């Protein structure tokens, strides 16, 4: 029997990016906030210590900072004809764990989505006709870029983002991304210093008539004091970023941006190594009254609260809704139901790997988001009229992971061991780079999330089941992108080039990306979305669901910038609308 605890105004599940943002904003509004976090407390000085953070085996290979499957796994299959089995180790994607969540181990790419991407269905239908997107299950997000612009700006200035604006209040600016939506002001910091490979890429792309720009990086190009007064250090290009916490206070994470302020507040408390089991609804099912959680010693508690915020990783938010009976589970056979609908991933796999002789790319001189890229083939920047797909990809070239357990390129045909392998490895380490494409992932009826009928977690609750394969539309996009990558790669004059694209049959084994989106999507209509434009559950009005679970589709860009912006947007709606008049903010 769970022990009943004293009431709080706000109860948050998970203290990662969205939990930290919401807690900061709502404690500022005077509310008493508690965050229930499954993983441990983590801070820079102790847990991302410079003395032992540069350890590839511990952090990148054995995944020390990530969620352990023993605590929570997920099952996967490519389609409903297969039997889902548990991913016994996470490897295609790596959910975060502990205070800071995935905000600890990300690279720092801090993007905005394009204005048309919040209204994809309307936009593409208008431009190409409904037939063009008939095989997809696209929906508008119920929000516009203009509404979200200030929230993007807030997140970028909290994070301290290095970049170059391409569109300032409608004015196209040389050197930035000319295709982006208008920004109200310049990035808080100038771009990072570019490495050799990125410079070669930018020059080749420019000569081909494309529009390269430094990708927006929440790795500090200079010392920075953020909008909350928290000081951050200059990035040292150490090469231990993705999968690592930053020991230099140079990568934006909740630890380096928000927690130093939030943790000092007496109206905030975090309970770590405490896992939320369920959100408890009132008998009418229209509001939630509390969450039940279990601590590390196995004791259960019931924490009542007026507002419940699901701030876990997107996939976990969806699972929590399904476990708690919030909203209606999606059924792919009828297309009805909302929770679990429009699960999307990211279409990786388009790449041109380039091999040279006599170069020194110094792949270890690297930062998380250190890249030059272009959007000439992203989103709907280019005319899809004569093409057989919609969507696109950001194309980029950078150095971020030169560590040699994971990065030992060899030319095709090289043996994987023995004397010939060793010779080729020694020769190629300094002589390889790649141009990659991070592609959009669009929803189809058969890709979705639900609860697994067989496999359970350590508390006996069903695991989340992922049913996903790359839609044909996205594979055609990937194929098209690979021809563009080949053009750019060729212009970079390699001695040898290997071009690839994504293929059918999502494989859960090789690492691809931790950009899982959808499942609790936002929208203007309750029949095709789980939450309204303020990320409020249509069904349970005091539950808000944060994170990339709200995305109706994923675009050719990293999701964190939009996750952060939506968190500020939702926090503002709670402060300015919900607290004045609790209840549904949008009539269903």
């Amino acid at each position: 029997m769970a022990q009943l605890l004293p009431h709080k105004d706000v109860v948050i599940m998970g203290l990662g990016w969205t939990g930290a943002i919401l807690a900061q904003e709502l404690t500022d509004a005077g509310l008493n906030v508690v965050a229930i976090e499954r993983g441990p407390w983590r801070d820079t000085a102790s847990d991302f210590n410079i003395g032992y953070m540069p350890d590839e085996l511990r952090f990148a290979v054995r995944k020390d900072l990530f969620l352990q499957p023993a605590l929570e796994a997920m099952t996967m299959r490519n389609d409903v004809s297969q039997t889902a089995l548990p991913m016994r180790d996470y490897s295609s994607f790596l959910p975060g764990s502990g205070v800071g969540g995935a905000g600890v181990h990300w690279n720092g790419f801090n993007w905005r989505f394009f204005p048309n991407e919040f209204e994809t269905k309307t936009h593409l239908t208008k431009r190409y006709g409904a037939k063009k997107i008939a095989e997809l299950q696209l929906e508008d997000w119920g929000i516009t870029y203009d509404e979200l612009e200030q929230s993007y700006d807030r997140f970028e200035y909290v994070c301290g983002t290095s970049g170059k604006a391409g569109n300032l209040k409608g004015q196209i600016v040389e050197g930035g991304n000319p295709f982006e939506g208008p920004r109200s002001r310049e990035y808080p910091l100038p771009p990072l210093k570019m490495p050799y490979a990125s410079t070669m890429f930018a020059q080749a792309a420019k000569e081909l008539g494309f529009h390269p720009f430094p990708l927006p990086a929440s790795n500090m190009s200079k010392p920075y004091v953020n909008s909350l007064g928290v000081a951050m250090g200059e990035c040292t290009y150490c090469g231990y970023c993705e999968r690592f916490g930053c020991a230099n206070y140079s990568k934006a994470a909740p630890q380096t941006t928000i927690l130093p302020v939030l943790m000092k507040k007496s109206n905030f408390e975090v309970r770590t190594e405490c896992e939320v089991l369920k959100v408890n609804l009132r008998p009418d099912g229209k509001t939630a009254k509390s969450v039940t959680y279990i601590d590390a010693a196995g004791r259960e508690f019931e924490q009542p609260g007026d507002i419940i915020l699901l701030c876990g990783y997107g996939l976990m938010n969806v699972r929590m809704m399904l476990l708690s009976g919030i909203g209606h589970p999606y059924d792919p056979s009828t297309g009805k139901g909302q929770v679990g609908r429009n699960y999307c991933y990211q279409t990786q796999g388009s790449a041109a790997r380039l091999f040279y002789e006599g170069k020194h790319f110094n792949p270890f001189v690297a930062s998380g988001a250190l890249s030059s890229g272009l959007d000439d083939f992203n989103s709907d920047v280019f005319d899809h009229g004569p093409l057989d797909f919609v969507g696109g990809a950001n194309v980029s070239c950078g150095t971020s992971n030169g560590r040699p357990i994971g990065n030992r390129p060899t030319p095709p045909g090289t043996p994987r061991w023995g004397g010939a392998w060793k010779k080729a490895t020694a020769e190629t380490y300094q002589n390889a780079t790649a141009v990659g494409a991070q592609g959009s992932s669009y929803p189809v009826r058969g890709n979705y999330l639900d609860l697994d009928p067989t496999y359970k977690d350590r508390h006996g609750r069903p695991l989340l089941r992922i049913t996903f394969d790359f839609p044909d539309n996205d594979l055609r996009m990937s194929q098209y992108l690979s021809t563009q990558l080949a053009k750019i790669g060729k212009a970079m004059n390699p001695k040898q080039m290997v071009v690839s694209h994504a293929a059918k049959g999502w494989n859960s084994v090789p690492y691809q990306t931790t950009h899982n989106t959808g499942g609790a999507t936002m929208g203007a209509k309750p029949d095709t979305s789980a939450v309204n434009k303020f990320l409020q559950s249509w069904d349970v009005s005091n539950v808000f669901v944060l994170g990339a679970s709200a995305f109706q589709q994923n675009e050719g860009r990293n999701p964190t910038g939009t996750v952060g912006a939506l968190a500020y947007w939702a926090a503002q709606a709670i402060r300015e609308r919900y607290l004045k008049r609790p209840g549904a903010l949008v009539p269903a």
Partner: protein
Amino acid sequence: MPRGSGPSRRYFLASASALPILAYAGETAARAISGALPWHPFAGEPPKPVNPAGWYFFTPEEVVTVEAIVDRLIPPDQLSVGGKEAGCVVFIDRQLAGSFGKSSRLYMKPPFAKGLPTQGYQGESTPAGRYRDGLRALNDYARSNQGKNFAQLKGAEQDAILTGLEKGQIDLKLPHGLNSQAFFELVLQNTMEGFFADPLYGGNKGMAGWKLVGFPGARYDYRDHIEKHNVPYPHGPVSIYGGA
């Protein structure tokens, strides 16, 4: 409780408002934190370098077999020492004796069904078990085909067996539904880890793997080199504990 006065890093730094029911001692205790950053000095958890003496997992016969394998996967030549001299067997031994060998962080609940390749390894056997079964079967195979243990074969004969395993052409008839090709992949992966991981884990002796490719290791600051395009980095590697 004032900052830094606790007996261990797992103490509670609880504000007056924190709930007393949460305040109990224990290694995996939940914590309630409010009103301050719960940081105190010397709280880090640095890795413990392995002691290179002795064997924690492998039997003497297994040691000889794995030494022979890692010296074919990474042979000694003019470019670097081989896998054995680099400590790859010590590395694998310590990994198998620890959390990796036991699959302690993985999801290991039944039922164990035969999966599709896209679903990854679905076996019940841990890496430690897979090595034990695989090494025994490898020597059985060598003895029944060539009359000698694997380690006693000539280099070319050893290579032929390893190549056969890699290509899926040799079936060691492993127990517990284990796959011979997957066994080879596991050994190859762990050998490369040992050769390129920080030396504190027992492999990469003298930073041989890092020197082979020109990786500077744990330097952590390249601000003076980021804009030196196509220029070799002038310094050799350092490891977490400063040397090899």
